[in-house]
């Protein structure tokens, strides 16, 4: 409850909230909006009493406060005037050398002239759309795709085509077919958007073979790839895979990453490495957006990298997140019914769970909120209405006890709905089997959905069963 007592008198013409006065002024692109129903529900996930597995937040609670204070003190003492001043659009050179080290840690060597410092990784997506897309242009993305990219694609009025994923990431056969079809339709996509490592929201990682194939397809068709790699360094199992950027050597890959998951999302610093002509356009685009990213933040991050081995903090995060992932996977195995499936991510922040297709996870979220627990309904990760029976679960943002309790509560409402559906259909299956045409089928009453349709749908919506994967 918040109470604000305002003085009784106000200007008589204060009708600033009446949007109809402005409605005619809004641009066409602002009318492309996500489901208001889902927005209303998501607003409730932020209540204090809700265990939210819906966020995508890293855990910043373990960053040492004294270290933070010392760094800020250093920035103030050593860089005072420069930190308070505008900086170059492309970013400060010392920070770009830090970025070089981070990319080196993933086996990707880069020339600092190929880098542009951005305001979070999100700005890279925005800038790529800004410089490449005209309204109606095609963007190829994964199905599901990063929910935060969807409003950006929509804002630039892109026509998003989504390619199914399986446990090895984006399916290259489907990609090839789709590109061929687009070519036949006389349409050339501008770029392919992919999160190859520990996908948000799907939790899967693109295999080495597919990485090579994707780069080959991009070269053959002269298409750009936007490789979004915010989580690459957060690997809990298995061997690292080369980035698309390192396979491509900077010809068709626009690489995006961020300090958000290895240091802090609060510094709002990300970066892109792109082919120079593209980078030039993005730089001009960034000038019109924000001139430059925060100088204070750039000096802070630079000071942090000078202070000591940045990898230690990442290692500590890996320990925390690995345990939380394991707790979530164990809880899912314990609490979710056998009809459910989920991915087994080797890193990152998210697990993607898919329920039987008669459960709508947007409605399920409404039910779950009554038990004070939240997740992201799968539909948020699609532009075409798919994903209705899936959900994204985050394991980085809340502690182990909350993960256990949250999954227990979600499992309970899922089992409740599975049970109810069984009650509703089990009886009817028996009764229709016993007396086949119980009533006259009306002309407008087509036969129940054929099994193969249901199976095909499941193929599209579901990643392969992975619950017992090693």
């Amino acid at each position, binding site marked *: 409850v918040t109470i604000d*007592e305002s003085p009784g008198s106000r200007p008589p013409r204060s009708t600033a909230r009446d949007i109809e006065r402005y409605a005619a002024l809004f641009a066409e692109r602002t009318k492309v*909006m996500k489901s208001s129903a889902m927005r209303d529900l998501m607003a409730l996930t932020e*209540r204090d009493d809700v265990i939210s597995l819906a966020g995508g937040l890293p855990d910043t609670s373990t960053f040492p406060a004294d270290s933070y204070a010392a760094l800020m003190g250093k920035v103030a003492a050593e860089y005072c005037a420069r930190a308070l001043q505008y900086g170059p659009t492309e970013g400060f050179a010392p920070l770009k050398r830090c970025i070089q080290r981070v990319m080196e840690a993933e086996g990707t060597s880069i020339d600092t002239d190929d880098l542009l410092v951005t305001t979070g990784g999100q700005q890279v997506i925005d800038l790529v759309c800004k410089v490449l897309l005209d309204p109606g242009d095609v963007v190829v993305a994964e199905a599901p795709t990063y929910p935060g990219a969807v409003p950006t694609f929509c804002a630039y009025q892109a026509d998003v085509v989504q390619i199914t994923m399986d446990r090895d990431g984006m399916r290259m056969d489907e990609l090839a077919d789709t590109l061929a079809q687009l070519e036949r339709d006389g349409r050339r996509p501008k770029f392919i958007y992919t999160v190859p490592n520990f996908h948000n929201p799907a939790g899967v990682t693109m295999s080495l073979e597919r990485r090579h194939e994707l780069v080959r397809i991009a070269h053959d068709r002269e298409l750009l790839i936007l490789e979004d790699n915010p989580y690459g360094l957060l690997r809990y199992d298995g061997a690292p895979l080369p980035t698309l950027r390192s396979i491509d050597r900077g010809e068709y890959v626009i690489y995006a990453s961020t300090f958000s998951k290895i240091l802090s999302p609060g510094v709002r610093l990300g970066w892109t490495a792109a082919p120079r002509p593209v980078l030039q356009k993005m730089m001009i685009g960034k000038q019109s957006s924000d001139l430059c990213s925060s100088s204070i933040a750039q000096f802070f991050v630079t000071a942090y990298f000078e202070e000591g081995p940045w990898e230690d903090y990442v290692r500590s995060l890996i320990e925390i997140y690995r345990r939380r992932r394991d707790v979530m996977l164990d809880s899912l195995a314990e609490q979710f019914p056998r009809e459910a499936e989920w991915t087994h991510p080797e890193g990152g922040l998210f697990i993607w769970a898919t329920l039987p297709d008669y459960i709508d996870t947007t409605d399920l979220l409404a039910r779950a909120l009554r038990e004070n627990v939240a997740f992201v309904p799968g539909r948020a990760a699609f532009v075409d209405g798919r994903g209705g029976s899936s959900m994204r679960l985050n394991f980085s943002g809340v502690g182990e006890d909350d993960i256990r309790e949250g999954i227990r509560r979600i499992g309970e409402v899922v089992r409740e709905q599975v049970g109810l559906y069984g009650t509703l259909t089990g009886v009817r299956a028996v009764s229709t089997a016993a007396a086949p045409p119980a009533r006259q089928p009306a002309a407008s009453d087509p036969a129940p959905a054929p099994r193969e349709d249901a199976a095909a749908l499941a193929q599209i919506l579901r990643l392969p069963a992975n619950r017992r994967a090693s």
Partner: protein
Amino acid sequence: VSLRVAVLKGGRSFERQVSLKSGARAEDALRRLGHEVISIDVGADLVTHLTDAAPDVAFIALHGPEGEDGTVQELLEAMGIAYTGSGVSACIRASDKVLAKHAMRDRGVPTPDFFAFNETAFKVLGAAQALPAIEERLDFPIVVKPAGQGSALGIKFARTAADVPAALVAAFSYDRKVLLERHIVGRDLAVSVVDDDGGPRALPIVEAVPKEEDFYDFEARYEIGRTSFVCPADIEPTVADRAASLAVEVYELLGCSAFARVDLMLEHDTGELYVLEANAIPGLTETSLLPQAAEAAGIGFDELVARILAASQPAISSEVG
């Protein structure tokens, strides 16, 4: 007379966002009318805040369960605080679609045929076995609704028997009681009713016209830009009169006061009117139907708010007598 008005908004319902907008807009109007506004986002400490604020009247801008179903009204009565809109019993009747439809059917007000069940009926009484008979009586497509949800959330179309179980599961996500209702193909009309000197008066009818052909996605239908609203609706005067008198009849039948909105369908094939439901606290946002209808009747938003305030439920307490 300047009053101390506590505007109750927000809350925990799924219509929280709409309620925040309704409340903010009412607050602006109340201030322009010269009242002192205390803005309260309703939560567990509501009683404490009301006690501290000691308002002359509570303006209820809550939508959905708790705000619209009589709960908050009951609490305000217990605390001896006057409040706007309908009283407890009318709120209970209007917010429960099943109760409202039974009342209408008993009175002879046309409402689409329906059957309502709670979860127990399916779990304990084997109501699922009755579904084929229900489906036959209602004919497809059938609309499946949670009994007590005010927005479009959870309302599903079942086009065939195969769709019914999933639609029921979805509706049960919102309420323990759901109804299966015959789908009326036709025009979507909303009649707002306000109390006037001479009793309840129907305002010009608002018609919701979906821009796209996808009639089967209720949630999408009410998204911005997907539906346009026409007020006054372009319908025959005799039909408009009939809709208005049905709306007033339902308003009185349920015991509403101050204001309410009654939703009807005008069936294509038959030209018959059917009442779907009544909303005890319809939205007051820029795009809501009641303010549009009031505007069409020459009642500006500030005047509407002034009238709602003037028609408040009096405080029930020993001092007032």
